[in-house]
C-alpha cells in the first residue's frame, strides 16, 4: 500500500513571456477604479505626506482625492480658465497651480481661496514647482520665460528668458534650494541656478520636451519628448547616458517608483512602460483605454493613478498582502514540538489508479474542469496508462458522449508540441477500438472530421516548417564554413542532409 508511487505530472516550461519579479510586482494591483473628470487630466500629484492624498488637475478645477475615496474630498475651482500642474509642497500643506491666463496661484490645503497670486506671466503657465527650501516657487510659461517667486512677499525674484519656445515642464532639485530644471518646446532642457541668474547647463533633447524628471540624488536627469525618453548624467556635464525608444507615440509623462529602482513613462500610445534604472530595459508594460497625459505613483507604489485625454482618471490600488499568518499557539519555553509526519493525500485519479480502476481514472481526468485548466495532468495520466499497456482498455467501452469528450480533448491539444507524441498514440488507439462502430453516431463522426482537418493543417504546417528548416540549415552552413568548426552541437544531428549538400 505504501509503495504506490503517484503519477508524476510532467511540467512543461511555459514558452513566451517570461514571468519575472517585475511582472509579478506590477501585476499585483486590483482592477482599476475609473473616475470621470471634467476634462483631460493634465496632472496628477501625490502629497508627500500621509495620508497621501492626491491632487488631480483637469479642466478648470483641481480635485483632491483621498487614498481610497472615489469622490473628491476637496475641490479648488477658483480658476477663470484651465488650470495646470497642481503640485503639493514637500510638507503637503500648500498647493501651487498654474493657469491658462498666466496666473500662478498658491492654495492652503485646508482653505478655499488662494493665499497668494503671482501675476507676471503673460501667457499660460504649464509648470510650477516648489524649490527645496519650501519658500520659493518656480514657474514656466508659454511666454518663453521661467520665473522664480518668493512666497512670503509674493514677489517675483528672477526671470530667465533663455528658452526660445513654450516652457512646458520643469522640476526643482530636492537637495539644492537654488537648482531647478525646465524643459521647453525648443528641444532643450536647461538647468538654472538662482544664484547666477542664467542657465548653468543645457542639454539638447532633439524633440519638444514634454516632461522632465530629476533623480532624488540629483545626479541623473530624465527627459521625455517625441517618442524618446533620454537619461542624462548631470555630474558629467549633461552627457547622454541612454536613449530609450519604446513608445510609438509621444511620451507625455514620467514618474519614478518610490524605491527609485524603476522608471515609468506614459505615452499617447496608451501605454505605460516600466524601465529598470539599472539596465534601462522595459521590464513591464500597462495598457490603458485612452492616450495618457499624466501619471503618478503613491508612497510605496501603493497606488498608480493615470489621467487620460478623455477625462478618465484610472486609479489602481495594490492588492493587500494576504495575511495568512495564523497566531502561533502559545508555547512554554520547555515544550518540545514534535511535528507529526504530514499525511500525504493522493489525488483522486491516483487513488483510482492504485486500485486499478483505470477507466474511472481516465474519466476523472477527462472531466472538462481538468482538461481545460490542467491538460498536462490528463496527458500524464494517458501516458501512464500507455506505459502500463492498458490505455486501450481504458479507452474502450465508452458511449457517444464520453467518446466525444475524449475526441474534444484531442482536438484541443493535439497541435501542442508538448503533448503531441502521447496524444497521437492515443488517437490511433481510439481509431482502432472504435472503427467497428464508426458511422453510427453523427456527433462522433463530426468530431473525427474536425480532428482530421486539424491533423491535415498540422501536417501542412510541419511541411512548411521542414522547408524553413532547410533554409536555416543553409544559413547556418555558411556560418560554419566561415568558422571551420562546428558551433552547433545542439542542432548538428538535425541536418545530416545538409552535410551531404556541403560535401
Amino acid at each position, binding site marked *: 500500500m505504501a509503495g504506490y508511487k503517484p503519477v508524476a505530472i510532467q511540467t512543461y516550461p511555459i514558452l513566451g513571456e517570461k514571468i519575472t519579479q517585475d511582472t509579478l510586482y506590477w501585476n499585483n494591483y486590483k482592477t482599476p477604479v475609473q473616475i470621470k473628470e*471634467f476634462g483631460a487630466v493634465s496632472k496628477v500629484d501625490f502629497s508627500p505626506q500621509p495620508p497621501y492624498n492626491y491632487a488631480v488637475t483637469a479642466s478648470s478645477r483641481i480635485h483632491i482625492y483621498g487614498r481610497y475615496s472615489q469622490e473628491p474630498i476637496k475641490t479648488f475651482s477658483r480658476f477663470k480658465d484651465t488650470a495646470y500642474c497642481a503640485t503639493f509642497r514637500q510638507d503637503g500643506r500648500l498647493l501651487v497651480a498654474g493657469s491658462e491666463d498666466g496666473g500662478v496661484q498658491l492654495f492652503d490645503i485646508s482653505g478655499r481661496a488662494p493665499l497668494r497670486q503671482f501675476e507676471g506671466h503673460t501667457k499660460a503657465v504649464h509648470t510650477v514647482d516648489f524649490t527645496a527650501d519650501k519658500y520659493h516657487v518656480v514657474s514656466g510659461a508659454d511666454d518663453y520665460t521661467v520665473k522664480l517667486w518668493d512666497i512670503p512677499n509674493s514677489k517675483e525674484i528672477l526671470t530667465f528668458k533663455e528658452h526660445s519656445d513654450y516652457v512646458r515642464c520643469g522640476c526643482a532639485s530636492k537637495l539644492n534650494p537654488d537648482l531647478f530644471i525646465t524643459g521647453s518646446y525648443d528641444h532643450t532642457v536647461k538647468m538654472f541656478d538662482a544664484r547666477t541668474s542664467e542657465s548653468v547647463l543645457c542639454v539638447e533633447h532633439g524633440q519638444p520636451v514634454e516632461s522632465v524628471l530629476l533623480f532624488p540624488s540629483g545626479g541623473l536627469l530624465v527627459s521625455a519628448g517625441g517618442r524618446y525618453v533620454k537619461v542624462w548624467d548631470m555630474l558629467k556635464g549633461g552627457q547622454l547616458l541612454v536613449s530609450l525608444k519604446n513608445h510609438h507615440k509621444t511620451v507625455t509623462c514620467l514618474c519614478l517608483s518610490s524605491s527609485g529602482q524603476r522608471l515609468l513613462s506614459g505615452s499617447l500610445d496608451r501605454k505605460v512602460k516600466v524601465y529598470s534604472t539599472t539596465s534601462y530595459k522595459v521590464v513591464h508594460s500597462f495598457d490603458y483605454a485612452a492616450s495618457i497625459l499624466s501619471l503618478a505613483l503613491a508612497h510605496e507604489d501603493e497606488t498608480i493613478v493615470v489621467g487620460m485625454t478623455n477625462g478618465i482618471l484610472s486609479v489602481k490600488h495594490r492588492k493587500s498582502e494576504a495575511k495568512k499568518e495564523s497566531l502561533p499557539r502559545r508555547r512554554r519555553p520547555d515544550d518540545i514540538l514534535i511535528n507529526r509526519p504530514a499525511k500525504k493525500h493522493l489525488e483522486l485519479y491516483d487513488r483510482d489508479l492504485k486500485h486499478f480502476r483505470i477507466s474511472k481514472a481516465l474519466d476523472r481526468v477527462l472531466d472538462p474542469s481538468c482538461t481545460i485548466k490542467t491538460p498536462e495532468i490528463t496527458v500524464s495520466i494517458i501516458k501512464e496508462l500507455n506505459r502500463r499497456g492498458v490505455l486501450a482498455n481504458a479507452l474502450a*467501452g465508452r458511449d457517444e458522449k464520453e467518446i466525444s469528450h475524449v475526441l474534444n480533448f484531442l482536438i484541443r491539444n493535439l497541435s501542442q508540441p508538448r503533448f503531441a507524441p502521447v496524444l497521437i498514440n492515443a488517437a490511433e488507439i481510439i481509431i482502432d477500438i472504435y472503427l467497428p462502430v464508426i458511422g453510427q453516431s453523427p456527433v462522433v463522426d463530426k468530431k473525427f472530421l474536425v480532428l482530421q482537418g486539424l491533423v491535415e493543417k498540422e*501536417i501542412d*504546417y510541419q511541411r512548411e*516548417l521542414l522547408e524553413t528548416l532547410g533554409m536555416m540549415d543553409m*544559413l547556418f552552413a555558411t556560418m560554419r564554413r566561415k568558422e571551420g568548426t562546428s558551433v*552547433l552541437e545542439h542542432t548538428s544531428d538535425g541536418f545530416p542532409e545538409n552535410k551531404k549538400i556541403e560535401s
Partner: protein
Amino acid sequence: ESPQRKRKSEAVGMSNQTDLLALGTAVGSILLYSTVKGELHSKLISGGHDNRVNCIQWHQDSGCLYSCSDDKHIVEWNVQTCKVKCKWKGDNSSVSSLCISPDGKMLLSAGRTIKLWVLETKEVYRHFTGHATPVSSLMFTTIRPPNESQPFDGITGLYFLSGAVHDRLLNVWQVRSENKEKSAVMSFTVTDEPVYIDLTLSENKEEPVKLAVVCRDGQVHLFEHILNGYCKKPLTSNCTIQIATPGKGKKSTPKPIPILAAGFCSDKMSLLLVYGSWFQPTIERVALNSREPHMCLVRDISNCWAPKVETAITKVRTPVMNSEAKVLVPGIPGHHAAIKPAPPQTEQVETKRKSGGNEVSIEERLGAMDIDTHKKGKEDLQTNSFPVLLTQGLESNDFEILNKVLQTRNVNLIKKTVLRMPLHTIIPLLQELTKRLQGHPNSAVLMVQWLKCVLTVHASYLSTLPDLVPQLGTLYQLMESRVKTFQKLSHLHGKLILLITQVTASEKTKGATSPGQKAKLVYEEESSEEESDDEIADKDSEDNWDEDEEESESEKDEDVEEEDEDAEGKDEENGEDRDTASEKELNGDSDLDPENESEEE
C-alpha cells in the same frame, strides 16, 4: 462673401412685424428677412457687432431686437430704423446666449457667468455663477413665482435653466431677493453635452415642467419635475429616447441614428423629433409615454440620402507627381515610401498640361487623381504603411498592431513588407515570430510565411551576423521539436482519411440502395479476411475481450443486458445490423474492411 451662420429666432411681437425672421452671421451683421415676401427686408450693420453673432431675441412687446456676440457686447436694435438703440459690454468673454424675462423687463445674458440685466437702465440686477465652462444655453422655465403670497414684482422667484459647454449638467436657478445665496437650486444630469433644449412652461404651482434635452450623443432625455426650491442631488431623466436602424440578419447590426432636435407640441403630450443627418432631417411626432424609462425607436433611414463620410476617408488618393519632384515622406530613415511616379493613366493629363501651356486647374488635377485610384490597387499603399506599423509595433511591443500586421494572408504583401523593413528590426521580428510559431497551426502557418520571407529576403544580411546561431538557436530547436511528430502524424492522418471516407461512403449507400450488387461484395470480402494473417483474428478477439470486461463492469451497475459475454463482441456489430436490418451484408462489409486495412498498414 462670408460664411453665414444660422441662429433663427422666432419673430414674435409687433403685429406689423410678425413676418420678420432675423438671422445673425459670423461677421457680425444681422439680416432681417420677410417671410411673407420671401426676400431680404433689411440689414442691421452700422454700429453693431464686429464678431460672430451668437444669439438673437425679439422683445415680446416693444419690437426691439436683442443680439449678443463674440465681441463681448449686447446690442439693442430698433428694427424700424435699423439703428442701434443701445450697446453695452455684457461680459468679459463672448456672450453666447440671451433670454428675455416673461414680463419683458429683464434680460438674462450668458457668457462666462449668467447676468440678469434691468432693460430700462441696463444695469446688472443679479449675477449667477456656478458653471465651470462658458454657458451655452438659457431658458426661463416658469412665468409665475411658486408662492403667490408674496407680491410679484415680475422677476423674483422665477426659475430658469442653463447649460454649459462640455458640461453634462443642466442647472436650474431661482431669482431671489438680494441677500439669498446665488448658487443653482438644482440640476439635471444627462449623458452628454446638451445641444438642444425645449421645455413646456409651467403656469401654476402644481403643473410640472417638462423638459426635453437633446444631447451630443444623439439621445433625448425627458424630465418632468415640479420646481419647488432647493434640491441637492442632480436629477436623472424620467425617460430616454433613442433611435436606431433595424438590424437585418447578422451582418447589419443596428446603428444609432442621432436625434438632432426635439420640441414639445402645443398639447404638451407629444414630442416632435428631428433625426437623421442635418442635410436631410426626418421629422416625426412621438406620443409621450411617461411610464417607460427607456424608448428605442427603430427607424429605417437607408432610403434617405446621407453623405458617406466613412468611404470618403478610406479612399486614399495618390497624388499626381512631377517626375523631377522629390517627395519627402515622414517615416523611418532609409526606408522608401511606396509613392511611385504617376502611372500611364496620368499621361493624358500631362500632355494636356503641355498642350495647354498654362497650369491645369485644380478641378482637372483632382479628376486625374480619381483616375489613378481606380487603377492602382490598394497593395502599394498598404505596403507603404505596413513596414512603418510593424516597426512601431516591434519597438513598442504593441500586441494589437503586431496582430494587425502579422495576420495578413496576402503573400505578396508579406514579401513587400519584409523587403521594406529596416535592417535593425529584423532580429526583433524574428524573435516575435518565434513567439508566435508555437500556437495553433491555423495562425502559425501565416507566421511560417513571414519567417520564410524574412529568411529569403534577408539571407545575406543574416549570414553576416556574427551571433546568428545564438539568435536563431531557440527558433531552430522549436521548429525541430515540432517537426519530430511529422511521421506519426502522417500515419494518423492516413487512418483518419480512411475512416472519414468510410463514413461518407456508408452514408451514401444508405441513401441509395441497390441490393443486387452488395451481395457479391460481401462474399469476396469474407474470403479475403480468411486469407489474412491469424494475428488479426487474435487481436480482434483480444480487443473484444477487453471491451467485454469493461462493459461487464459498468453493466453490473446498470443491469441492462443479460446476453452472454462471449456474444457481446458481436453484439456491437449486430447493433448496426438492427438499425439497418435490410442491409446486413453491407454493414458487415464496411466494418470489416477498414480493420483489415488499418492493420495492414
